[in-house]
C-alpha cells in the first residue's frame, strides 16, 4: 500500500465513493458525516502540514485524512511509551510521534534502522499538542532506495495539481446546480465520483443506450444487452452472442456470464438450452 501512490489514490477514490453513497441515503446527516468519513492518503510536505488550519489537513481544498511524508531524521527521542522522530523534509522540521505498542514485546519493530541522519517515510495524521503540531505516525519505514525521494518529490507536486484539477472540475460542473459551499469542503465525494465514473466508462457506456441493468458488471451488462436487444421470439443463440462479442469477452467468460444471468433470473432459455431471451421484454 505504501510503495505506490497510485494505490493511495485508488483507496481515496473508493473511500470518497462510499461517502457519497451514505450521504445519498441520509442527506440530513451531511454535516455530521463531513470529515470523519474521508479515508485518503496524500503525499505532503511538512510545511504544507504546518500551514494547514486547525480544522485539519487540506490540499487544494480537499480534506486529507493521512499525510505521507519523506524526510531526514534529525533527532530520535525514545521514551517508554513513544518514539519521537524530528523529521526534516527541506521545507520544514516537524516531530513525528510513534506510540509504542506494549504487545509488541521486546521487538523494536525495525526501529533500529531509523537512525539519525537517515531518510525515512512516514504516514500519519496531524495532531496538535500544547500548541505544537506533530504527525502521529501509523507507519514509519526507513528509505532503503533513494528513488523513493525522487518519487516523493514528484508525488507531492502531482497530488497538488491533481486535487486542484478535481476542484476546478467540480466547481465548473457545479455551476447552475444546487451545489452550495457546504458541499465544497467535502470534495472527496466529487473526487471519488469522478474517478468512479471514469473507471466504469467501458461498461456503462456500452449499456447507456438500452437502459443497463443495475448491479451487473460491465461484461454481464454487455451480454445482457445483446440478449435484450434481440427481437426474435426464439431468442438469441449462444453462437450469435459469441460472435457479437468476439474480441470483447472470451467465449468461456460469456458462457459463465450466461449461467450467472440465468441463475439470477435476468434471462431464460427458449427453444433449447442454447437460446436465450431476457425476462423483462
Amino acid at each position, binding site marked *: 500500500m505504501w510503495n505506490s501512490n497510485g494505490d493511495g489514490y485508488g483507496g481515496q477514490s473508493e473511500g470518497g465513493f462510499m461517502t457519497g453513497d451514505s450521504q445519498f441515503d441520509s442527506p440530513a446527516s451531511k454535516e455530521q458525516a463531513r470529515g470523519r468519513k474521508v479515508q485518503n492518503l496524500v503525499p505532503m*510536505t511538512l510545511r504544507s502540514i504546518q500551514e494547514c488550519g486547525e480544522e485539519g489537513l487540506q490540499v487544494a481544498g480537499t480534506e486529507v485524512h493521512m499525510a505521507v511524508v519523506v524526510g531526514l531524521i534529525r533527532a530520535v527521542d525514545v521514551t517508554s511509551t513513544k518514539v519521537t522522530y524530528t523529521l526534516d523534509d527541506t521545507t520544514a522540521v516537524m516531530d513525528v510521534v510513534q506510540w509504542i505498542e506494549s504487545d509488541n514485546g521486546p521487538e523494536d519493530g525495525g526501529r533500529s534502522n531509523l537512525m539519525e541522519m537517515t531518510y525515512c517515510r512516514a504516514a500519519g495524521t496531524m495532531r496538535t499538542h500544547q500548541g505544537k503540531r506533530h504527525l502521529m505516525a501509523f507507519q514509519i519505514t526507513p528509505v532503503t532506495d533513494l528513488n523513493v525521494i525522487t518519487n516523493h518529490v514528484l508525488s507531492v507536486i502531482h497530488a497538488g495539481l491533481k486535487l486542484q484539477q478535481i476542484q476546478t472540475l467540480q466547481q465548473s460542473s457545479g455551476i447552475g446546480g444546487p451545489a452550495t459551499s457546504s458541499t465544497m469542503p467535502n470534495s472527496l465525494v466529487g473526487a471519488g465520483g469522478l474517478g468512479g465514473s471514469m473507471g466504469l466508462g467501458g461498461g456503462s457506456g456500452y449499456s447507456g443506450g438500452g437502459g443497463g441493468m443495475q448491479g451487473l458488471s460491465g461484461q454481464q451488462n454487455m451480454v445482457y444487452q445483446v440478449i435484450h436487444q434481440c427481437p426474435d421470439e426464439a431468442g438469441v443463440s449462444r453462437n450469435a452472442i459469441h460472435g457479437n462479442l468476439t474480441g470483447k469477452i472470451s467465449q468461456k467468460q460469456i458462457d459463465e456470464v450466461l449461467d450467472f444471468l440465468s441463475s439470477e433470473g435476468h434471462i431464460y432459455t427458449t427453444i433449447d438450452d442454447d437460446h436465450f431471451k431476457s425476462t423483462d421484454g
Partner: protein
Amino acid sequence: MVTEETRMRVNGSLLSQHSGRPVVILGTVQKVDPSGMMVSLKASDDQVIQVKLQQPVQENIEGVMEVHGMSQGRQVLCQSYVTFPQESYANFDMGSYDEAVKLIHSVSGNPWKND
C-alpha cells in the same frame, strides 16, 4: 545544525542561481580534498560543484551524498550532509531525480517551492 528555513533542492546549474540562499544538493562524490575540508561533487545534472565543509571529514566519503547548506555560487557551504549505503543508490536514477529537481523550480506554487 538544523535550519528551520525552507531549503530548495537544486542541481549544479540551479545552485549558482540561488547564491546566498539555503539549498539541498545531491550528487556523486568525485574526490575529497586531502585537507578534508572540500569535496568535489558531481551534481544530478553532471555539473561538478565544490562543497566547503566546516569541519574536516573524519570518515571515508564516497558514493552518493546529499549536502544541506548555503549556496555560494559554484560552491555550497555545508551545514550538514548525508551519505547513503551503496545498496540504496545501486538502482538510483539520477536523471529522474534531476527532472524532479527541475520541476520543483518550474511548477508554480508547488509545495517544495520557497515563495
